[in-house]
């Protein structure tokens, strides 16, 4: 059976929006107890909760309830939020993979378009690309390379597994887009007819 005073102090500390010290608690109880007596009761309460999912802790003479730090992972649950990699990011990733180590300027030269900082950030967030030091040229630009996580995600044993340019061409991956499109639409026959006419 918990005594009434202990219950009252426990409830106060629970409902308070700021940590309370022994003097404040005594004041709210009508100053019939000394802060020392209050402190003793607070310690009893803290001991009662020890080892549970609720802790009564002291910070600079003020007491407040909190949840134990070792349970923080339950309170901040992480959830997967899958996102499809953008076309631009896929291009940059491919360039890093085929040409590593590369600087951002080199990536842009190969792509023929400016690469936004966010694109590289996304690849680094995905942990597929990581900085690999600086190139010893004027300006000492950062250079990037792919990671083991990259190889793992794309099911590659090593970078040497990446198909060469000729393989890509054979697979039709180097066909101009509009030609490939027309082929798919079966309009090529008409063009040939036109040529014959």
């Amino acid at each position, binding site marked *: 059976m918990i005594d009434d005073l202990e219950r009252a102090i426990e*409830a106060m500390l*629970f*409902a*308070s*929006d700021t940590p309370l010290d022994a003097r404040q608690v005594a004041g709210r109880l009508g100053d019939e107890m000394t802060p020392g007596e209050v402190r003793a009761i607070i310690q009893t309460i803290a001991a009662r909760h020890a080892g549970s999912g609720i802790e009564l802790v002291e910070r600079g003479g003020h007491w407040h*309830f*909190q*949840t134990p730090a070792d349970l923080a992972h339950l*309170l*901040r*649950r*992480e*959830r*997967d*939020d*899958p*996102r*499809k*990699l953008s*076309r631009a*990011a*896929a*291009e940059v*990733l*491919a*360039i890093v*993979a*085929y040409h590593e180590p590369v600087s951002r300027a080199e990536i842009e030269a*190969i*792509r*023929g378009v400016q690469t936004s900082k966010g694109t590289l950030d*996304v*690849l680094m*967030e*995905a942990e*597929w690309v990581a900085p690999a030091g600086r190139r010893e040229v004027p300006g000492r630009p950062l250079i990037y390379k792919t990671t083991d996580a990259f190889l793992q*995600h*794309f*099911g*590659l044993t090593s970078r040497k597994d*990446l*198909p060469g*340019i000729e393989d*890509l061409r054979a*697979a039709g*991956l*180097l066909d*101009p*887009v*509009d*030609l490939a499109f*027309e082929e798919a639409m079966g*309009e*090529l026959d*008409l*063009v040939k*007819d*036109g*040529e014959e*006419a």
Partner: protein
Amino acid sequence: MEELPLDFEIVPAAPERDDALQLSFESWEGPLDLLLTLARSQKVDLKQISILGLVEQYLTFIAEARELKLEVAADYLVMAAWLAYLKSALLLPKDPLEDPSPDELALRLQLRLQRLAAMREAAARLLARDRVGRDVFLRAKPEGLRDIKVRRWDASLYDLLSAYGQVKLRSEPVVHMVSRRPVITLDAALHHLQRMIGVKLDWAELSDFLPPDYDGPLRRSAIASSFVAALELARQGRVDLKQEGAFEPLYLKASGA
């Protein structure tokens, strides 16, 4: 009037009219509420209440209020008229053919009062419960439970390789391959039309001049270029054009033929 109901507010009137009392009707939530208050003054269970007595109480009350020159809201007057009717029906000898009978009307009124009274009591008991923020308190600043979204990027090897293919393609020397669409040029149409005009002597429709094996997009192109060619030949005075009206077939023949 013997006694005013307990929650009847007597508000001193404004100074310039201190000869009158103002009785506030805002104390009641409508005529049914007033009836219930009056019924309570009978100090009996609502099941045993005298409806006739209640009707008289209500009518007296409204009459007093009007004597005091109070504004009585319309719905209170409507109820008064209805109750006056009920009273006379209850007092008159019973007409067995009357439907609904006054007793039935009285019973309905009683049932309504019982239901309103039940809810009034329920509301009072509800408000008297231990309420959060008044009687019981929650943690003022709980840590809160959070869901943190962790982005997981997704791409396939195909995405990667086709992206690289596009990059390589962009950086290769640019060779434009414009696919030729099946068209009949204006020159070809002019040439063709000039030849055909010599053959056809009378008025003939423009489409008759087109080769019969042209179809699909090629035919549409041929019509368009032949039309422009016909206008050009007319401008040169080499053909005459004729059309019955807008969107009608266009006829042409060699000039002077």
